[in-house]
């Protein structure tokens, strides 16, 4: 293919040579000689020069010759291309034995006693930490609200979708967390995923823990910011990245003045069941002037004396955290999520949080259920101690199962059991763990595999069985579950 890239005038090779010849001929003669030469020049020379000048003029004024015009497809060619094009199928076929294809069916409430595929089991799988899911008080409040407002809100918050219950829940959450303001979303997943892009824009920098959950990853993607992952809970690695960035900033202070920087961590990590080193992060925050966003879906209503989460657990001043987000679908056992912090931060989301502005608001009965759950949590902070003790107990009981290792910290209510030695492939590991889960289901202990989108996760966690602690599980239940897992592991893994 010919490689004339320039779009302007294309010179013919031959004429280009002539022109250089012409210049070469004139260049080396001294001025005086040239003048003389002009006088004495033979006629053919003058004619030649004349022709050359005319040629140049012609080239200058000739019609622009666009090369890509030759590439322009004719209608016929286009039609052929359209005829020929065959798209891929909309979705690739899913094999019948895909592990996520057939879901277990739960009939009745997914509470402490749960009926899976027709079998009543003890629930070690739902994140119903405080057992509020089938709490009678919560139900009654939800019903009262249903009888007043109906189910749906029929609109986003801006357009007659703000109910007095929403305002009450927001102020109650703010009061519970001891922050200035709270904002509620109608879907837990959308909370942090909307909050991140409300603040962090293109060109900003976010430092994220590698173990961050999927909704954080989606928020990062939506923000289009520059993402820097640090090794899970590794403060040296974070500091290294922050130092690198500081050097970068010193080189270009003008850019640094407008580049926002954030650290994004989870309180209790859903993927690893361990806790973030918050006091060190806060130190880092002031040293490097980076804001901290904390996702507390697993720790809100779990950690701390009053269930306020990881800030209370470490005794960190909650004002030092720029934004805390959590969902109300785990400990609170309702639906939705919230963000809280100072008004300066939170209020911004009311116009720029996409999941807040453009989505229908939370059904009032679900907000009412969340308020009642907060009431219970405030009235009886002992439940957090009970949960902690239970978690500790199950953590101890699950130690030393041959072939399986327990992942997580001892006060986490959502632990992971991973294979000690991988069998080689992820699929067969999943298969193996699924057999253990099935074995337990058979014996009326409900467990579940932790599910991930394998191709979409930034750092795919190892396959694991989730073990969820709730305050309703009795000593007997725990023993039964542990012995089931032990038996299954002994039968399958040794």
């Amino acid at each position, binding site marked *: 293919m010919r490689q004339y890239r320039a779009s302007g005038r294309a010179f013919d090779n031959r004429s280009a040579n002539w022109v250089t010849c012409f210049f070469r001929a004139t260049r080396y003669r001294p001025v005086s000689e040239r003048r003389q030469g002009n006088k004495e020049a033979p006629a053919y020379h003058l004619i030649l020069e004349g022709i050359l000048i005319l040629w140049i003029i012609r080239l200058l004024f000739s019609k622009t010759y666009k090369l890509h015009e030759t590439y322009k*497809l004719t209608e016929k060619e286009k039609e052929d291309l*359209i005829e020929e094009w065959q*798209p891929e199928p*909309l*979705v690739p076929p*899913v094999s019948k034995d*895909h592990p*996520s294809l057939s*879901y277990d*069916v*739960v009939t*009745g*409430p*997914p*509470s402490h006693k749960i009926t*899976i595929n027709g079998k009543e089991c003890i629930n070690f799988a*739902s994140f119903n930490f405080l057992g509020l899911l089938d709490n009678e008080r919560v*139900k009654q409040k*939800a019903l009262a609200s*249903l009888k007043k*407002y*109906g*189910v*749906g*809100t*029929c*609109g986003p918050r*801006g*357009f*007659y*979708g*703000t109910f*007095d219950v929403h*305002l009450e829940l927001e102020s109650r959450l703010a009061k519970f967390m001891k922050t200035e303001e709270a904002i509620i979303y109608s*879907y*837990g*997943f959308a909370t942090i995923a909307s909050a991140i892009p409300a*603040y962090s824009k293109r060109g900003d920098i976010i430092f994220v823990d590698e173990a961050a959950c*999927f909704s954080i990853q989606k928020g990062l993607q*939506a923000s289009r910011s520059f993402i820097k992952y640090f090794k899970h809970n590794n403060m040296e690695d974070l500091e290294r990245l922050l130092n690198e960035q500081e050097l970068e900033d010193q080189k270009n202070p003008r850019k640094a003045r*407008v580049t*926002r*920087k954030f650290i994004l961590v989870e309180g209790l990590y859903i993927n690893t069941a361990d806790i973030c080193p918050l006091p060190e992060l806060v130190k880092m925050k002031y040293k490097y*002037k980076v804001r901290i966003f904390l996702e507390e879906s697993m720790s809100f209503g779990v950690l701390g004396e009053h269930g306020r989460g990881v800030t209370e657990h470490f005794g960190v001043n909650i004002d030092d955290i720029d934004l805390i987000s959590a969902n109300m*679908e785990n400990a*609170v*056992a*309702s639906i939705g999520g919230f963000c809280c912090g100072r008004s*300066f*931060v939170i209020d911004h989301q009311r116009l720029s949080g*996409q*999941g807040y502005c453009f*989505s*229908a608001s939370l*059904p009032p009965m679900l907000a009412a*259920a969340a308020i009642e759950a907060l009431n219970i949590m405030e009235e009886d902070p002992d439940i957090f101690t009970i949960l902690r003790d239970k978690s500790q107990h199950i953590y101890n009981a699950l130690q030393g199962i041959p072939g399986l290792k327990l992942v997580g910290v001892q006060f986490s209510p959502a632990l992971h059991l991973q294979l000690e030695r991988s069998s080689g492939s992820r699929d067969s590991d999943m298969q193996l763990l699924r057999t253990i889960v099935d074995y337990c289901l058979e014996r009326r202990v*409900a467990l579940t*595999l*932790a599910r991930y989108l394998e191709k*979409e996760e930034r750092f795919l966690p190892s396959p694991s069985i989730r073990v969820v602690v709730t305050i309703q599980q009795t000593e007997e239940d725990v023993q039964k579950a542990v012995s089931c897992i032990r038996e299954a592991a002994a039968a399958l893994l040794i």
Partner: protein
Amino acid sequence: QKDNRHQHVRFSREANQNAPHTSSLYKKPFAESFEETPLLVAVLTYMGYGILTVFGYLRDFLRHWSIQTCHVAREKEEQKDFVPLYQDFENFYTRNLYMRIRDNWNRPICSVPGAKMNLVERVSRDYNWTFEHTGRVVKDVINMGSYNYLGFADNTGACADAAVEATEKYGVGVASSRCEMGNLDIQEKLEQLVARFLGLESSMIFGMGFATNSMNIPALTGKGCLILSDELNHASLVLGARLSGSTIRVFKHNNMQSLEKLLRDAIAHGQPRTHRPWKKILIVVEGIYSMEGSIVRLPEIVALKKRYKAYLYLDEAHSIGALGPNGRGVVDYFGLDPKDVDIMMGTFTKSFGAAGGYIAGKKDLINFLRCHSHSALYATSMSPPVAQQIITSMTIIMGEDGTTLGADRIRRLSENTTYFRRKLREMGVVIYGNDDSPVVPMMLYMPAKIGAFGREMLKRNIGTVVVGFPATPIIESRARFCVSAAHTREMLDTALKATDEVGDLLQLKYSRREQPLPSLGWMAKESLLQD
């Protein structure tokens, strides 16, 4: 003269090149209008924004020198030297324009969002920076704002009773994802019902309408795929398209020439730079556009999609339940085969008076989503009473409860829509959109009239939605009415009377279109014959 007529015929044929084959696609006339903004109004509107901006700067100056009290929340003292969390000028609009008329949005309500609602009365003593609730209730405001198309937002009746039962049986939460331990029988029942309602093989439900779009489009397309998106698509579709990593090209609103050109060019040229053929092309459109009141030109889109082998993603957030003789959305409205739409998406928030969304289509598609949808694996599944509300309302719409209550609602909505739109047009205000769309935008144009209209209507006990920039183009601020089957003729008349009064007061009767007198149609025909 003969010659003249011949030319006229030829001219009209050229002007509507596609007319011969497109008009045959529609079974009834497709009447949609967007009256042009009068020039004087446009100029005055820009002037209005100019004045507001000048005063905004003046106020900011006064605030800066503490001559005027500043209510804006401040950064924490220790963090003053951090990079600002948001740029000050980003908030110029919020601080100086939005704040003046903020009382028109987020009005708290304390009742069912039905045909009439009760509002919590609030006052502001500092020009809308903060609100106080007086403790009083503004009773029986006619609700022209909620998307309660079929009137299923109700706290009594079959839906509410069934939802009560579901709450008693299941509780409200689920505390797990579909894929792990949150797949309830009631949700599976709902999925089968949705598939049957739409006449498709299979369906899947999700807990939030917004997330249905933003978390499923990325599962369907990826790098090397092309998304052709209408310029007025909802934020959730835009977000989903962006998260998918596909190339996105935007076509003019409901403009089939623009779409066809993009399709032809895309297939002929392939991917940018490498010129590899696209893996797949997905056309993303909505059924009813909620800000324009327009209905998608689905028959033409289906024809284009078939011709160019593209896939079609149809978001029926506003149209499901609200359009079509059986309430089955825009496909039903045009009398098309639902199988021609590859991905049918919709929400339960509006016509069903619940929350959440669905995707329906072929079995393969749904099986794929069950394994690859972000929502199925990571998000908590739908609350049981919400699912029950949808099941009951959908059963009623389908007439499977053994009554004609559903059919009555659909008919009443359609009658109300026609009546309300006709009356507004006769009044001389400019309204946008399709004659059959229950979303009725009415043009206000000027920023000052946004606030004035919302407040004046509320004084007359009518709750309306007003919208301005950035939800609309800067000079096209508008009010929006959502007609519902729950509205009685009397309520509509009250709302129309109020609109008439406020229209006179604020000089909103901009329409320069001649009123369609009965004789006019005949005259038009006459003049054509003379020609």
